[in-house]
């Protein structure tokens, strides 16, 4: 049972309901959270425990970021916060207030995909497509980080993104192409 003992006066912003004299249950209640996603300010009513991933998918209907494991293993939820790649499933949405969140939906626009999105299609760098948005968010960041210089570097710095269909050789080919075109 998720009881915590509170030995002093509660100063937490989280609403606490007393079940009995010795045990206290923390009950998160909703709060307005201002999220800036893909250049647009969005006000969302979120419980503090809501992950950035669930906020994006369930509250903003930005379902491009995928939930694969919900425990930071698979990388399908990779987004950028202030331009750095993060795992949205391990990031609390409330912690993103005041920061710029970018998802796969904000990377290219219809009719004008990002070169990485185009390269993924051209090289058939996916099958089911469920890991693909996370792969692309990592792949673009990889080049900007300067971590795509060799095949070994690509393998190492893409290792947080699992492709269960095993399209890895084609993902690598897509990254190489975009890297070389940018050089």
């Amino acid at each position, binding site marked *: 049972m998720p009881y915590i003992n509170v030995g002093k006066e509660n100063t937490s912003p989280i609403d606490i309901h007393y079940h009995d004299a010795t045990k206290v249950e923390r009950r998160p209640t909703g709060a307005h959270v201002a999220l800036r996603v893909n250049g647009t300010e969005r006000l969302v009513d979120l419980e503090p425990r809501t992950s950035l991933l669930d906020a994006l998918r369930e509250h903003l209907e930005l379902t491009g970021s995928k939930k694969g494991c*919900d425990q930071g293993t698979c990388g399908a939820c990779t987004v950028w916060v202030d331009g750095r790649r993060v795992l949205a499933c391990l990031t609390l949405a409330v912690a993103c207030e005041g920061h710029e969140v970018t998802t796969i939906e904000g990377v290219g626009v219809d009719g004008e995909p990002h070169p990485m999105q185009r390269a993924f299609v051209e090289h*058939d760098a996916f099958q089911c*497509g469920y890991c693909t948005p996370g792969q692309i968010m990592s792949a673009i960041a990889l080049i900007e980080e300067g971590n795509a210089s060799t095949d070994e570097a690509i393998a190492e710095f893409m290792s947080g993104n*699992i492709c*269960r269909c095993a399209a890895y050789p084609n993902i690598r080919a897509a990254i190489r192409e975009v890297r070389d075109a940018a050089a």
Partner: protein
Amino acid sequence: MTGSIGKSVSRLDGYEKTMGHARYTGEIFLPNMAYLAIVGATISSGMIKTIDRSAALDADGVIAILAHDNLPQIPGQPQLLPSLVGAPAPGQSFFPLQDDEIHYYGQPIAIVVADSYERAQYAAWLVDASFDQTPSITTIEQGRELAYVPERLFGGLMPAQDARGDVEAALASADVVVDGTFHMAANHHNALEAPTTTAVWDEDRLTLYDATMGVRATQLTVAHLLGLSLSKIRVVSNFVGGSFGSRAMIWPHVTLAALAAREVGRPVRLALTRPQAFSATGQREEQEHRLTLGATRTGRLTAIRHEKLSVTSHFDDWAEPATGVSSQIYDLENFAGAHRLIRGNTMTPTFTRGPGESVAAFVLESCMDELAHEVGIDPVELRLMNHGLKNPRGNPWSSDGLPECLRRGAELFGWDKRNPAPRSQRDGDWLIGHGVAAAGYPVALFMPEQHARARIYGDGSAVIEAGTPEFGTGVGTMMTQVAADALALPLEAVSYKLGDSDLPNITAAVGSAGSMMVSAAVHEAANDLRRQVMALAVSDEQSPLHGADLSSVDVKDGRLTLRDTQDVGESYSDLLSRNRRTYAEAVGRWRPPPLDTPRGLLTFGAQFAEVAADPDLGLVRVRRMVGVFAPGRVLNPKLAR
């Protein structure tokens, strides 16, 4: 014909996937939708003592907590049959939440319904269940003494034993005998999208958005479990985040979502968590193989005995068939195959990518490698000399690519540079080995008739429709290529529609049969449509083709023409609009060849690998692999690779 078949076309849904617009099952939003969370058993055998719901019911946003004591019983459990049969296809003959007995860890014991995902998950954690635990068996070692030989396997479709000749006598008189025992751990599929279903009722009509390999399989199975008319249930599945066999059968969570939606009178979404994916859709069974082969001193195989021992559930005699390759790929007179089972506290095992035969072929080919060493024959040559022109029933192969695959692979890999002496090659601390394996996979033809619909509109655009989901195979792209080819249309003029049980019948795309059966049905549909439109033209007095012999009419560049005089003709749209036809359409039907078709049916291939092993640390690294396959006609090389 445009020749669009065989072209390396990029996936037509590629930008939907890379731009993040493709909507998977858990991304369908319905008004007033509630969220489900499953509470699973934390023991693998025993009885539920109590389920204390009080804290969970007290939590914010909780709508209901359903368990065996307050959920209606299902009216009927369908028989377990592989989904390719085209009948209801429950993954196991057991449906949870019917009573208080626990058969396997993770078995659903309660469903929490709440108004948000977070609240459902939180409340599921507050549900406090207690159990009376009884001893359980979950591994081969725990149950070895209890192994039995079932009468039949695989939903009764195949015998558990298979024999020809006299294996014992042949092994006793063989010059060389190789005997190997191999143990494989259970495997879980872990498709990247966890099992997910969204369910909504409209009065007595149910719509399910389900991550499945077969919308028809989901429709048939859920309808049976709920006692619902097939006409009252529609299953939609456009994009599926992988399967690897986990969605080849229809597992209980799908029907639980429908049941819960009916109970609470709201649309619901059930997305299982990653840990739950290990106890929700079956698994490849833990298994042990013993393979014994006998051969002459010159390397001719005389006998193979192949036994598989594996763990199944308490409900079903299920093992992935393991002797389809070992009994057929080499020409030999004496064979005995047997599957033995141990009843365990697991889900019923199920298909996992490369079902059965991939694991079993590793066993066979490892023993072949030992034999090559023993008789001093090159491993590629040993396979070539033992592969026959016919299958064991004396039927010639429908196509036999094995020799070519082995030779081409050897060339690509640089097999001739290999040093065959064991432990002869080193790279620093690493020992380097080179190996080859023949590959084979049986072709399953027990699907029912397959349907697809082709329609061409008065403006000359066409659409091809079939009730199959896209789970990574690129099926929509392939359908478009096949239809465009038959109608002589550019790919841009053809669109596709799939993933809906309201569309023409396609059986679950399992057993590596998807491309074959879908493309065959699409081919029939587009050909029927072309003949229909041609017939309309020759019978239309105003058509330049009026009165022409049907056999002299052709389609080319989106036009109907005379084969020999191609400037005589007209476009589809001229013909259809003049005849006041909004569209013309045809449903194509494809029936598989009969099961007793007089051909040997194996798809062949060959694998070559360079493997490094560190003898001190036990590390193993695959450094290089070449695979060569003879899959028949490749519809799209880019997707095939």
